[in-house]
């Protein structure tokens, strides 16, 4: 995809942080309100797709790079499975929610029934939300970036063949 006009680029640059913040909010409040790692990740990834559309795949590839994103994705996945393995060490079972009720990080137990929501609850759930969020953003963005780059490349090749 080639670069769009200046108006589009400016508007995309203005809108991008707002969508980003909304996505991060959805990720962070996953254990209290509708949302979570996947949903927030998808929102942030669509913000990145907006950037891709506005600035073109060449620019994005040069600026962000697919290698760096792959590393992010590996790190997110690694954190996720490491949290699960920590459950094995602290809670004696794989995938144990060892932080719930520990009065440590995110360790509070909320009042049973309706409440206003407390960030400091949920055990490992918020942490897992973040790990999955990083992973989903990086993963979906890499997919779109690589495919857009390749499609751009093919279009150029076809143009050369015809012209």
């Amino acid at each position, binding site marked *: 995809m080639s670069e769009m006009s200046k108006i589009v680029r400016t508007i995309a640059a203005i809108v991008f942080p707002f969508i980003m913040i909304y996505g991060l909010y959805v990720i962070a409040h*996953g*254990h*209290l*309100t*509708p949302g*979570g790692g*996947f949903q927030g990740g998808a929102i942030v990834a669509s913000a990145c797709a907006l950037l891709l559309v506005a600035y073109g795949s060449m620019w994005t590839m040069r600026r962000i790079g*697919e290698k760096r994103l*792959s590393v992010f*994705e590996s790190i*997110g*996945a690694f954190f*996720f*499975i490491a949290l*699960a393995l920590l459950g094995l060490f602290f809670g004696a079972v*794989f*995938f144990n*929610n060892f932080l*719930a*009720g520990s009065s440590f990080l*995110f*360790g*509070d*137990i*909320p009042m*049973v*029934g309706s*409440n206003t*929501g407390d960030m400091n*609850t*949920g*055990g*490992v*759930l918020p942490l*897992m*939300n973040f790990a*999955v969020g990083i*992973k*989903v953003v990086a*993963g*979906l963005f*890499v*997919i779109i970036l*690589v*495919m857009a*780059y*390749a499609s751009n*490349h*093919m279009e150029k090749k076809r143009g050369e063949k015809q012209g």
Partner: protein
Amino acid sequence: MSRRDMFAVVFFSIVCMFFIFSALLMHPFGSPDETDMDDMIIKNTQRETGANNGVTSVVFDYRGFDTLGEATILFTAVAGVVLLFRRMKET
């Protein structure tokens, strides 16, 4: 219509018939028959996981292993796409 299409239409309509049949035989919309497992999750989610959101607690706690599989699928797809387009980047 070719012979292949006629052959296809016969069997396809049989399968369609069975699908529609099963849709009509489902429990009435909005009132599931059995809800033991989900009722237990709804009742215990706050006490056991400390999360207000029942869905998140299912996704990451009760069925966390599925989520690991799902994250793995995304990872796999990314690895696959990057693998398939590896020659494009060089040129």
